[in-house]
């Protein structure tokens, strides 16, 4: 996953439309247009504020990326996060950092950092030595690239720069797989990558806290499937290990050293018996191919398109006693795909052909979240919007309606090249003076609304909410004192004091929320309203009411 960021706008009164790029669907198929980006514009309609956003994309298979890289310049990629070590997620990393010139930080979890270079090296060997590709990255480049990688721990909050922070969550897809939570200011998104919600024999389930992102970008490979149990994937773990066993049996070492990234049960028992010490698995030597006797070979790549697995396949295919188990999805055009579709005779580049007589089995061991898992993840992290990627359109439609129905949130499934605009609204954080807050927040009648009255001071990007009078003083403004004096005439006999007393009692009764005071010179003051009553005993009394504009309150007297 790459995060790209455009320029930062800091001025007041501008609204910005900053795009992100996210991965479109169908990228697992390298024969169609695999790296397509959906632009996702985030409009920041915060009042007089805007926040910069990033662009996200995933660096998939190198050759596919090469053509696409020109559509955005590498300078504006801010940071890259490798969610796990599978090549469709990190295969182009050395190309990006060493050949294209990406120089931002690269983040990986510790196990990914450990395993990724081995897979990259393997990939390089197959591409350069077997397929004869030129213009490929070298071993040296892989090494220098891996030196730039910053290893992250789960839940560690990493400040990429002043505004952007990222946090990794456990994804359970493979050893060290992570989901990333990216936050810039108030806005945030979660990119799941591939994740798995059912714990299996060796890895725990993905977990995320209630981080309430604006957007959850979720894979939806098994959008409609609900898998019965972990039983069908019991040998899942072998599939993951086989990725490495073929190359020198190092995989189990990593599992041994990264026990803390596996499931709880394994953690609890590892002192007695480290379950990744395999007795029966040994590194495969090419000479074993012709050995007599039954054997089980784990070899890569899984799609039988090159490398050791293909070599073994060629050797063993003609014999019907043999069996091949295809462990996962095979891309159209690969030998694996043909074998699965029951092709009985497979031709190779140099006019060779092989009769396929061996038994073919397909077992899905791939650890992806099913529909139930996706729904569960959504309910955990409570996103405001969901965006589905990495799946088949029809199935995604079904899931989309389900998400919209169940959670009442917007769900998007952009096609390749489609732009999605998501508007987000956020509260604006402001500094409030503690004096003002304490005055207003102190417990009053809980049934009444607590009304806060203050002045919002804006200086540059700083927002402060302070006491109104304090703000005026601070800004050097003097309030204009506007007072009114109105004279009322009342026909009532008796001495002026008697009427004054009457009015005073009335004031006390009617205007109970302000204290009324009777001063010695015979005037009544209620807050800053002054009432003076004058006139001779038997004559019409004049009532002088003086008040300020700030307190437009009228006294009604009988």
């Amino acid at each position, binding site marked *: 996953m790459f995060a790209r960021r455009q320029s930062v706008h800091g001025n007041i009164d501008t609204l910005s439309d900053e795009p992100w790029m996210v991965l479109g669907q169908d990228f697992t198929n390298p024969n169609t247009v695999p790296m397509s980006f959906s632009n996702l514009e985030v409009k920041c*309609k*915060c*009042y007089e504020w805007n926040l910069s956003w990033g662009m996200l994309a995933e660096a998939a298979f190198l050759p596919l990326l090469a053509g696409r890289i020109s559509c955005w310049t590498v300078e504006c990629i801010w940071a890259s996060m490798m969610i796990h070590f599978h090549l469709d997620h990190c295969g182009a990393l050395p190309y990006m950092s060493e050949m294209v010139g990406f120089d931002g930080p690269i983040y990986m979890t*510790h196990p990914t950092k*450990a395993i990724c270079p081995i897979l990259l090296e393997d990939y390089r060997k197959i591409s350069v030595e077997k397929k004869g590709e030129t213009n490929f990255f070298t071993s040296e480049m892989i090494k220098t690239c891996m030196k730039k990688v910053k*290893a992250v*721990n789960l*839940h*560690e*909050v*990493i400040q990429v720069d002043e505004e952007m922070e990222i946090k990794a969550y456990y994804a359970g897809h493979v050893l060290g797989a992570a989901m990333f939570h990216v936050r810039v200011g108030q806005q945030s998104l979660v990119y799941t990558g591939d994740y798995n919600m059912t714990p299996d024999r060796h890895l725990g389930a993905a977990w995320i806290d209630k981080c309430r992102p604006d957007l959850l970008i979720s894979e939806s490979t098994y959008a409609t499937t609900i898998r019965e149990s972990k039983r069908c994937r019991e040998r899942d773990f072998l599939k993951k290990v086989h990725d490495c066993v073929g190359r020198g049996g190092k995989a189990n*070492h*990593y599992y*041994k*050293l*990264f026990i*803390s990234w596996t499931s709880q049960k394994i953690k609890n028992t590892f*002192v007695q018996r*480290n379950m990744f010490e395999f007795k029966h698995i040994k590194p495969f030597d090419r000479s074993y191919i012709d050995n007599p006797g039954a054997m089980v070979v784990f070899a890569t790549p899984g799609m039988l398109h090159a490398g050791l697995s293909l070599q073994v396949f060629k050797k063993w295919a003609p014999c019907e006693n043999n069996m091949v188990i295809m462990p996962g999805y095979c891309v159209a055009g690969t030998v694996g795909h043909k074998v699965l579709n029951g092709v009985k005779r497979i031709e190779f580049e140099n006019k060779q052909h092989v009769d396929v007589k061996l038994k073919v089995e397909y077992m899905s061991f791939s650890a992806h979240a099913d529909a139930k898992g996706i729904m569960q993840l959504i309910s955990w992290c409570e996103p405001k919007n969901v965006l589905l990627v990495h799946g088949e359109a029809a199935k995604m439609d079904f899931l989309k309606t389900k998400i919209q129905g169940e959670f009442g949130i917007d769900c998007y499934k952009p096609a390749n090249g489609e732009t999605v605009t998501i508007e987000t609204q*956020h*509260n604006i*954080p*402001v*500094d*409030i*003076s*503690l004096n003002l*807050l304490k005055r*207003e*927040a102190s417990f009053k009648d809980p049934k*009444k*609304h*607590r*009304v*806060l*009255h*203050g*002045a*919002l*001071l*804006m*200086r540059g990007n700083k927002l402060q909410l302070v006491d*109104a009078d304090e*703000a*005026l003083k601070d*800004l050097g*403004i*003097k*309030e*204009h*004192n*506007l*007072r*009114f*004096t*109105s*004279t*009322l005439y009342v026909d009532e006999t008796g001495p002026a004091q008697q009427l004054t007393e009457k009015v005073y009692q009335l004031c006390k009764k009617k205007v109970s929320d302000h204290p009324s005071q009777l001063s010695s010179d015979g005037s009544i003051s209620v807050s800053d309203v002054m009432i003076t009553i004058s006139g001779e005993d038997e004559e019409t009394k004049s009532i002088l009411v003086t008040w300020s*504009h*700030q307190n437009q309150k009228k006294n009604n007297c009988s």
Partner: protein
Amino acid sequence: MKLCCLSHNPSKPCLVLYFKGMTIMLDCGLDLTQLLHFLPLPPVPGSKITSLPDWLLATEKFGKNGEELATELKECNGRVFVNGVMELAPPELCMVDLSQVDVILLSNSASMLALPYITLYTGFNGAVYCTDPTLQIGKLYMKELVTYIERVSRTKTCNLWKKDDILKNLPLPLRDAVTPIAWQKCYTLQDIDACLSKVQVVGFNEKKSVFGALTVMCCSSGYSLGSCNWIIHSDYEKICYVSATSTLTTHPKPIDQAPLRHSNVMIFSSLTQTPLTNPDSMIGEFCVNAAVTIKNGGNVLVPCNPSGVTYDLFECLSGHLDSCGLSTVPLYFISPVADSTLAYSNIFGEWLSASKQSKVYLPEPPFPHAELVSLGRLKHFNNIHDLQQDFKCPCIVFTGHPSLRLGDAIHFIELWGKSATNTIIFTEPDYPYLDALGPFQPLQMRVCYCPIDTSLSFSQANKLIRDLRPQHLVVPETYITPPPSVTQRPDLVINSELSPITYKQGEVITLPVKRKYECIEIDPKLASSLDPVEIKPGSAVSMVNASLVVKDNKYILEPLPPADVEGKPFKPRPYIYGSLNTKAFVDTLSKQGISDIKVEDRDEGCIIHLPKEDILIQVEQGSTHIMCGGDETLRIKIRDSLLQCLQKL
């Protein structure tokens, strides 16, 4: 903001911080030095310890009480030891209401041993945070302690000696026992599981919210596996708690200083306990002493903790033995948790120093002791009884407990103590070694004291403080005067121009942090209704009348509802400012159909007279007074004209 100190020993801290209505406990160390007052618990029967004489002076000194007291106290070489159930000295918990503690932050595995006393059976209901290695290794420390105590049955509880009038007449060092009346029996294995099952694991730089009011985060302190310093944030204040920290390069991940910068308050604890020695030279001396003893045909006993510096000792010692041509000398590591601690050390790759971490990527075990174990050079046993068959001398034995009151070390002292060719090497700084050896005297065995304390020395701490520039510094009282043994060394103090605030056990101090601001959020709907006025270039102001919502210690301003409960609409107070331009006002008035206007200039402004309407308007700098009769419509007309000529907020 207040700080309360519950612990007597600054290296086993237990502090409680009160801030923003939250109660946070920082560490809960258990001061195991008090164990030294007890008679050792020998792991094998028939030990010399069990046949020590009662304290004879008891009857002479205390008369009638003395007879009973004599059974409680045993004497060895002029010192008196308590012959009763081992009791531990938890922090002074009566000073705080534990049910009010919101969160406990643990900084390393050595300073959490009192946790069961705090979270169990006390009504404690808060959260406990620590890193994963701290939890796992802390658990091993606790298990080792409990196993050592439970393994040997000693059932007699001794309380008589604790009585004030008796205690003050007992000989030293027993007389100096710290509040023995508050000591408690050790917790059980079940207690450990119950207590630790509630601990929540955090990673370095993971932010955790404490009821919305505060955020806590830990960052590496470089002292031991997973050890950390804590940073407590509010939106505006930052408090750093610096516990056992090391700037030396050992096996753990190095100290992360950046998050500690710019704090308002920095609280220090757990500086070095051996200010006079340098850990690097001590580790060298340790290796040399061990090698020399082996060459002379003697055995070496290293009383140690099951984790921490012990890993470094394995590494350095095996290297040194190789260079001396002693590679065949077996190393034995005996502890009830020996297998676990060695296994755990190898799976915490991400918590280790860069060089150890890079090994994990190869993949190789990060610690060399994994190789030593696979080669059979380092043999580990959970129990001394498993050892019998393949025990070869001369050898080097690492075993607990460093206090020499518990564990298998006792057996080895008795086994090897009579010969001067053998050596006991003390490396743990927590216990005064002469006191530790007390009940084993007289001893022929050679004694070496090479304390290795990697935590900050005073000069390192002073440098750190200069670099980090906290606003206020809080340190234990004992750190501002030189240690009692070396009063002539004025450099062994925390020396800062900040004049540190000090704390000591039993004291509550007020920290000088004055909060000025709090964060409040403005609802976007409300925000869009605001209409700020630019007063000066770059400064704008807008009056806000809003409804205040408080939820989870977060403050939010929302638009006012159209009316309050009684149906009265909220009327905001108007603000007008500026001076009245008389001419403009007169013009506005005439537009309103008031034609007869007389303006009379005065010193301080003017008086506008409307003779027809019988209205006087007194205009002054910054104030206007309108005097009219009872005609409301006219008054409002004039008022509105006036407001047009003034600036409003």
